């Protein structure tokens, strides 16, 4: 038989207790929060925030910006060349980095690695490449191979391996297991399985990560010039050091343009390919 109608009030009386909106934190969690907040406050103190300095600096910034306009286009040709070199450095470094990260990433994928020891070593190498900042690599390579874009390209390559190696490995780890099992079942070799079942599945992620690392490398290659690793960074530093802000403005604008174009093209390619 149908149950008698139960009104809302009746439900409220009989229903299970509604849980609280928030879980009350334990004493440990509470202390951790407190500590984190205290540290943040101390950090504000630590960096010496000074509103006076900021206010006093504003006219200086204004004056500099004033001198930047109109930008000085007299050295446009050499700036364009430096810009081209910057992008070439980024491109070559990224492409070599991507090519080298693929085998490394295969070794660093738990489900595909031929040996657990190789897995550990390749993981460690990738972490090392990723955790050491690109500027440090650039400094090292400037010492090793001398000033110039070659050092910068090497630094970018290492940085790319650190980034792509990790992403490629993650993408391959997540690849659908079904096709891999099918390849195993028909007697394919390990390499056959990786190239036929794993890489096709991970390809969209690979392309996304590769394009992103090209964008990243383009931005990085500008900074690498500051330590003498080739590219337009050194031009910017010289212009700033000589207080020729109008020239610096041209350089900054052209960098902005380069980064923008690379990002646009990469977004376009990403949409096309994926």
């Amino acid at each position, binding site marked *: 038989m149908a149950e008698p109608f139960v009104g809302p009030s009746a439900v409220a009386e009989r229903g299970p207790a509604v849980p609280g909106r928030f879980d009350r934190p334990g004493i440990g969690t509470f202390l951790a929060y407190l500590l984190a907040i205290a540290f943040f406050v101390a950090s504000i103190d630590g960096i010496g925030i000074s509103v006076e300095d900021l206010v006093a600096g504003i006219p200086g910034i204004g004056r500099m910006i004033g001198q930047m306009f109109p930008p000085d286009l007299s050295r446009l040709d050499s700036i364009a060349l430096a810009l081209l070199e910057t992008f070439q450095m980024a491109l070559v470094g990224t492409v070599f980095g991507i090519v080298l990260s693929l085998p490394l990433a295969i070794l660093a994928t738990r489900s595909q690695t031929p040996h657990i020891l190789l897995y550990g070593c390749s993981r460690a190498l990738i972490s090392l490449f990723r955790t050491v900042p690109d500027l440090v690599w650039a400094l090292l390579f400037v010492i090793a191979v001398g000033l110039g874009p070659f050092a910068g390209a090497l630094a970018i390559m290492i940085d790319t391996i650190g980034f792509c190696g990790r992403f490629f490995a993650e993408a391959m780890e997540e690849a*659908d297991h*079904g*096709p891999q*099992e*099918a*390849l*195993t*079942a*028909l*007697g*394919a*070799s390990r*390499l*056959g399985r990786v*190239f*036929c*079942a794993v890489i*096709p*599945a991970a*390809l969209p992620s690979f392309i996304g990560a590769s394009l992103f690392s090209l964008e990243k490398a383009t931005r990085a290659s500008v900074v690498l010039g500051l330590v003498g690793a080739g590219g337009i960074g050194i031009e910017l530093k010289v212009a700033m050091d000589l207080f020729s802000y109008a020239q610096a403005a041209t350089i900054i604008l052209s960098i902005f343009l380069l980064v923008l174009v690379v990002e646009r093209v990469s977004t376009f390619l990403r949409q096309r390919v994926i």
Partner: protein
Amino acid sequence: MLALQPRPLAADPIRVEAAAPTPLAGAAVPAAVDLDIRGMVKSFGEAKPVLNGVDLAVLRGQSVALIGANGAGKSTLLRCCLRLIEAEGGSVRLLERDVRRLAPRDLRRLRARVGFVFQRHNLVPRLSALSNVVHGAQARHAGARYWLHGLAPKAVREEAMHCLDLVGLPHIARQRVDSLSGGQSQRVAIARALMQRPQFVMADEPVASLDPNAGEEVMGLFSDLMRREGLTLLFSSHDLRHAVDYADRIVGLRAGRVELDGPARAQDFAGLREIYG
């Protein structure tokens, strides 16, 4: 035709001799045993064994349906035969090789001779149907030339097209498999298995994810191909009608053992349903 002695529903392990069939009508020599599983044990973790002493022999050219409730261990049994997962106990002889003792290289050679069709076709989604069929050639050859149809030698491409033709899909050769219907995908998977030039084919619920019509069609095609090529077939199914129609022999798994074994023709649905009880 193969005719088997109906095996009584028995709780004790059944010896292979008991399963020995009357030889092919008119043939003087008994048919070879292609698959001989004895006392197979497999458990996952602490739980009670999924397979608890399975004995099963399959003769050359036979078509055997494996039935059993969800979780009875049909997929596990099939996977253990190719060591896609490792059994814990028992022995498996497949195409005259002692599967559980094979070195990796020999295991690959054995797998190459055995086609395996999965419930979810397990094709490589972003590649063309033809590339997926070409993959089957990796059973015989290693190397990058067998990774994509664009790289494959002419003879291999032709053979792959022939396999696609056998399953009635030559016209979708260049289409990406993720754009195919379930029935088409499963047929491509069958073509990939044929590309291996297998001697034995296993199929784990090959049509379970297809609608009834497509399922009927694919199962009919599959079984015809196997018969025509004289291949031994071991397939699992939840469709008792498929088991009766397309198998010579039906084997039922329950509680980790073979609880039913007999010629397909002699079975009635009520009797078969007992395996699910």
